[in-house]
């Protein structure tokens, strides 16, 4: 049974999807014409991933219709969606690290008996045909993020997907790699495939998409038939629902104070035993925000870990307030004045199954004691203060924190780290995945800390955030600080090149 209007490759109609406590999609629509690249835009949490997961058969919608190539579909599993021609590159890659590139590509669509040589040859042919280099014999854990993404795309091409969904593909790519991806996607669209491209980076979207759908709070708020005709600021407004960009104002000029954090010739290995940091020298002074720019995976994670004592450097010294802390345990560093908001909020930063109170006092429990015992009343008081000061919206303080939304988790975490007036704050991806208000709240706390004299090391993938907040920018590439730039006078193109390791003299 064909639809009344067969001129679409994908038609998601009035999709509804609820999760415990959230409505991710509240009647959203998406319609994609064959052979086009269609941008799905929206802020973090708008419901983009949920929407395409419905298309991929991962989520069963609570309401709405799914049409693919003119046919109504009722997917019971990802297998059904694959059979209908939907190929998906997930935001968090779906690859098995221990398997080879070839094994990952054929997984789910392999011949009954595997002959490695034959499969590897066919995979090599496929990757050559689409100009996507990938050594079929290498295990995936050895690949860079960009290479992994190529494997994901090849996986969809191996099944000859007619619809290819890419969920935030450029978050892990350099600007150069992103442009290459754009060209590859165009070639696929010219082949007759339809592509759904999810992003919140408007400049890229305009550069290589044909049409767009904008989601806000689980609803479709706009569709654009020709992206060449629209004004970027109009699109941005549609996404956030107001003309505000979501970034706080530039902090006022303050003379930087004494050095509070330094790294001297620091080198370290990553989990695989390969060099992750090489000879890093940097200082952070009181009253300044130092931004770390770089494509993720260039040593940022290891940098934060070395500073906070979660990873041992192979060489060099780390000092906090001029004191050598290279061999100091993380807890002692904290008590010396080093606060840390880790990238992995719910794994490293907070314990999901513990209560709000327990998570709040886990750093400063020593001041809530009488003798050997924790005084619960003191803990609760401490937590209440924190919740109030940082505007954490929570249910009961004794409930596990797993139920809190991302923004409130981050407010709690930041509040806890700032509770005992640190001298240095290392914040890794502090606003990733938060809604507009959450982003603004966290950013204004960072700026306020700077005003009060804290030295902030801000590690972020969001270039706009770094440009808005930082006093100085350090660019990391392959484990080195390749250059220092001034955020207000450096053209973006120069920053982009530096992120790709090309530094102009």
């Amino acid at each position: 049974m064909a639809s009344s209007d067969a001129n679409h490759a994908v038609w998601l109609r009035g999709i509804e999807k609820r999760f415990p406590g959230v409505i991710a999609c509240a009647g959203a629509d998406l319609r994609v014409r064959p052979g086009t690249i269609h941008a799905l835009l929206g802020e973090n949490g708008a419901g983009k991933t949920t929407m395409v997961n419905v298309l991929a058969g991962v989520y069963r919608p609570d309401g709405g219709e799914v049409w693919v190539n003119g046919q109504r579909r009722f997917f019971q599993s990802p297998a059904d969606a694959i059979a209908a021609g939907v190929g998906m590159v997930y935001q968090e890659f779906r690859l098995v690290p221990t398997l080879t590139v070839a094994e990952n590509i054929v997984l789910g669509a392999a011949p009954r008996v595997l002959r490695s040589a034959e499969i590897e040859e066919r995979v090599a042919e496929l990757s050559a045909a689409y100009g996507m280099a990938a050594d079929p014999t290498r295990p995936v854990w050895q690949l860079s993020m960009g290479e992994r993404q190529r494997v994901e795309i090849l996986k969809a091409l191996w099944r000859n997907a007619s619809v290819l969904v890419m969920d935030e593909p450029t978050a892990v790519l350099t600007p150069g790699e992103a442009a290459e991806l754009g060209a590859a996607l165009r070639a696929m669209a010219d082949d007759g495939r339809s592509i759904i491209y999810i992003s919140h980076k408007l400049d890229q979207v305009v550069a290589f998409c044909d049409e767009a759908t904008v989601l806000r709070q689980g609803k479709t708020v706009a569709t654009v038939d020709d992206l060449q005709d629209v004004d970027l600021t109009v699109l941005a407004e549609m996404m956030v629902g107001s003309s505000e960009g979501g970034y706080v104002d530039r902090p006022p000029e303050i003379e930087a104070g004494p050095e509070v954090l330094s790294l001297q010739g620091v080198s370290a290995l990553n989990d695989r035993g390969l060099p992750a940091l090489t000879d890093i020298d940097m200082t952070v002074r009181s009253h300044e925000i130092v931004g770390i720019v770089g494509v993720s995976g260039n040593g940022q994670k290891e940098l934060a870990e070395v500073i906070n004592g979660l990873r041992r450097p192979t060489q060099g010294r780390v000092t906090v307030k001029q004191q050598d802390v290279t061999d100091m345990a993380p807890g002692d560093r904290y008590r010396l004045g080093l606060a840390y908001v880790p990238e992995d909020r719910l794994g490293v930063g907070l314990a999901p199954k513990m209560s709000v109170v327990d998570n709040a006092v886990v750093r400063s429990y020593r001041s809530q004691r009488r003798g050997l015992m924790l005084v619960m009343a003191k803990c609760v008081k401490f937590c209440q203060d924190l919740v109030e000061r940082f505007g954490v919206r929570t249910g009961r303080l004794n409930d596990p924190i797993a139920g809190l939304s991302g923004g409130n988790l981050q407010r709690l975490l930041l509040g806890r780290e700032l509770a005992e007036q640190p001298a240095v704050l290392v914040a890794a991806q502090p606003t990733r995945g938060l809604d507009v208000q959450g982003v603004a709240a966290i950013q204004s706390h960072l700026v306020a800390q700077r005003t009060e004299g804290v030295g902030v090391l801000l590690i972020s993938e969001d270039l706009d955030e770094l440009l808005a907040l930082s006093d100085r920018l350090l660019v990391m590439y392959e484990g080195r600080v390749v250059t220092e730039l001034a955020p207000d006078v450096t053209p973006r193109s120069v920053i982009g090149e530096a992120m790709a390791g090309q530094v102009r003299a």
Partner: protein
Amino acid sequence: MSEDALIGLFVATVQFGTLVFLAALGELIAERAGVLNLGVEGMMAMGAVSGFMVGLETGSPWAAFFAAAAVGALVGGFHALVSVVLGADQVVSGLALTIGGLGLAAYVGRNVVGERPETLFTDLGIAGLADIPWIGEIFFDQPPVVYLAVLLGLAVWFVLARTRLGLALRAAGESAPTTDTAGHSVMALRSGAVMVGGAFAGAAGSFLSLYMAPGWVEGTVAGRGWIAVALVIFGAWRPGRLALGALLFGFTLALQPRLQSFDIEVLGVELNRISPALLGILPFVLTVVVLVIISWRYRHRPSPAPAALGLPYRREER
């Protein structure tokens, strides 16, 4: 020490090795798919008692053997239902299986304690080879289950390494969401693996009650199920190493009851003065040593342990 005693020791080594190899091979299949099953001991007991009773009834060792495998698969199915389909904690479910399986086996077998079946597995005596001195007796004059175990080991290796099913199974043990979104049913793969694993354990149990210690008494399995669980780790989740480890563990099991009668010295220690109980913990000590070596050798690359081992999977949860 007499030559006969020494040959007897090696003959028993092969048989004990077969016993733990079969059970461990089943556990390996389940674990490679991502499901830890600590119920091997209980599944072996259920296999031992049911195999023995079917043997009494039918007089056919093969009917008994396959009945035991079917019962093992059924018990494994219970673990699959609880931990894979309903997503309960695998450790709790597995331990319940061991405790419950041992108890249920004792109950089911209460009326056949002390009986002996008429027909049991007999040694094969492979023509031409069985007459070779030493080697012939140790390797070529064994019950058919020994050779079946070798074939099963090869088959499991082939399926895991060389087939679509094996690839899917390994993927399910490494990352369930990846396997699911590639179009395989994680639930079917894992449930199937646990049930096949149960069949192997049940069959191993019947090898005990139909051949190695014919008859049924409570406590027949005597911790060999736990040795099988340890053996999977010792073998680093690989069928080939599992086979080598099985011979080593089989040797300690065979030596245990004979130790006191060996009046020889090894490295200045008189063997018959060593307590057999000490020998009994050797497999576990070796396993811990191997575990430490593994975590050291694999500190910079993915460990051979399936990454998703013990983690339940539900599609819409994150």
